């Protein structure tokens, strides 16, 4: 799970694409998913996500995200089916519109989550920050904040797993099947996680400052983030996705 957001080196078109284009492509897929209620379009977007994953050589990761979201998806599907009261009743309290809405919500969730993970698989976090600053002129502190947040996710997960391991060694039974009991056991762990996070943030801030954090501008980066044919192709795909989502009823 901790390697979910880790960069996988490669030379695929997606790896070569400008980081800003990748972000735009991700946002376009997400926007298209929210602009349409058509299940076929959502299904197409999901297939498109998997195609991106396969092209980037990260098919396994795409499937692992899919597997990870499976339980949440089932829960959401049941919830939507039970709570949407519009449409014709099919059986018990389930309506046809409830089923369609539930399917759309689940598909939308999958469509949105996959590209976000894939972007981080094919782009170094430092390149995302560099491109945001150089191409979009985002102030470096904001880009740094964003990328640090992303970079810290696996570290927090590792820290949490270390804390749980330490507590397990003390006899706390995290392997219980009772979710309420488990939640009660997890709450005390917030303290060490919070303390370690604050300490880590302090250490990162000090390290950044001694390396001239406030001197950095959009001209400081040594790497240049240009645009090429692959970025043009991606821009056309983005436009097509948005247009398709809006125009197909």
């Amino acid at each position, binding site marked *: 799970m*901790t*390697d979910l957001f880790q960069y996988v080196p490669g030379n695929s078109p997606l790896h070569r694409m400008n980081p800003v284009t990748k972000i735009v492509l991700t946002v376009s897929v997400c926007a298209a998913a929210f602009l349409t209620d058509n299940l076929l379009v959502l299904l197409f977007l999901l297939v498109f996500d998997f195609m991106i994953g396969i092209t980037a050589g990260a098919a396994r990761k795409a499937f692992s995200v899919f597997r990870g979201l499976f339980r949440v998806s089932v829960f959401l599907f049941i919830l939507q089916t039970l709570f949407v009261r519009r449409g014709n009743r099919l059986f018990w309290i389930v309506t046809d519109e409830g089923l369609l809405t539930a399917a759309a919500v689940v598909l939308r969730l999958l469509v949105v989550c996959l590209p976000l993970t894939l972007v981080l698989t094919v782009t170094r976090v430092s390149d995302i920050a560099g491109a945001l600053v150089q191409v979009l002129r985002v102030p470096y502190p904001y880009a740094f904040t964003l990328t640090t947040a992303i970079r810290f996710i696996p570290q927090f997960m590792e*820290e949490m797993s*270390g*804390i749980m*391991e*330490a*507590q*397990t*060694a*003390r*006899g*706390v*039974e*995290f*392997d219980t099947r009772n979710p309420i009991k488990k939640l009660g056991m997890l709450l*005390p*762990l917030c*303290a*060490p996680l919070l*303390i*370690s996070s604050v*300490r880590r943030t302090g250490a990162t801030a000090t390290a950044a400052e001694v390396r001239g954090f406030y001197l950095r501008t959009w001209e400081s980066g040594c790497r240049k983030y240009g645009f090429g044919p692959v970025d043009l192709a991606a821009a056309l795909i983005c436009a097509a996705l948005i247009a398709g989502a809006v125009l197909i009823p």
Partner: protein
Amino acid sequence: MILAEHVSYSYGGGGQSVSDLSFRIGKGEFAAILGENGAGKTTTVKLIDGLLKPTEGRMTVNGLDTAKTKVSERARQVGFLFQNPDRQICRNTVRDEIAFGLRAVWGKKEKDRIDERVGELLDLFTFTGDEEPFSLSRGQRQQVALASTLAVKPAVLILDEPTTGLDYRECTRIMEFIRTLNEKEGTTVVMVCHDMEVVLDYARRALVMAGGRLLADGPVREIFRDEVLMERASLLPPQIIRIGGRLGGTFAEADDAETLASLVADEAERRRGA
């Protein structure tokens, strides 16, 4: 007491695995597991504690198979002091922190017994009980973590680099507690440590690991004097052992500075007399 029979473990994500580990650590022993980073030392102690289950072979502690024993049952037998005390500490006062593990293992109904044991440990470690653990120094936090680990009187104590980040005084205080526990109460101690001086001072037996395998197992001094083994395991023996080894003869038997100085003085005296 601790019996590893052809134990192997491999991490799915590609972390350092261990293979075909077989050893027996008896009651009251003080053993150190040595090796360079990635040798599989921490994996081995996690296997002893049952935090990891062997993919092959069998690990038993006091006759209980760690793969089949419940967490709370195992925590009664084995205490684990981690390198980073901050992963262990989760309560607002030292008193609550020590009581936390006791409540998990003995149950909340045993309030009087828990209070009594917490009082004993507060006296032993000279805490008032009302201190906030996260406001204490690194060494004191490590002592709080040790007190919490010892609360349930484990028969086996595992220490994973317990002296990392501690100054000499803090390190000595922690290790003296552990020595007393080992010598007076017969607690079995298994320690992972990169500080060879600490190993020489406190451990009596050493298990040397490299590449996930057990290279050697024997008395600490004998292990340190085996130069070929030390080279294979990428370890540097304590300075006193190296000086003694260079001087050779009876000097090689010295394992502390005072003994070596006295041997050198005797030799000088002998030569002057001759």
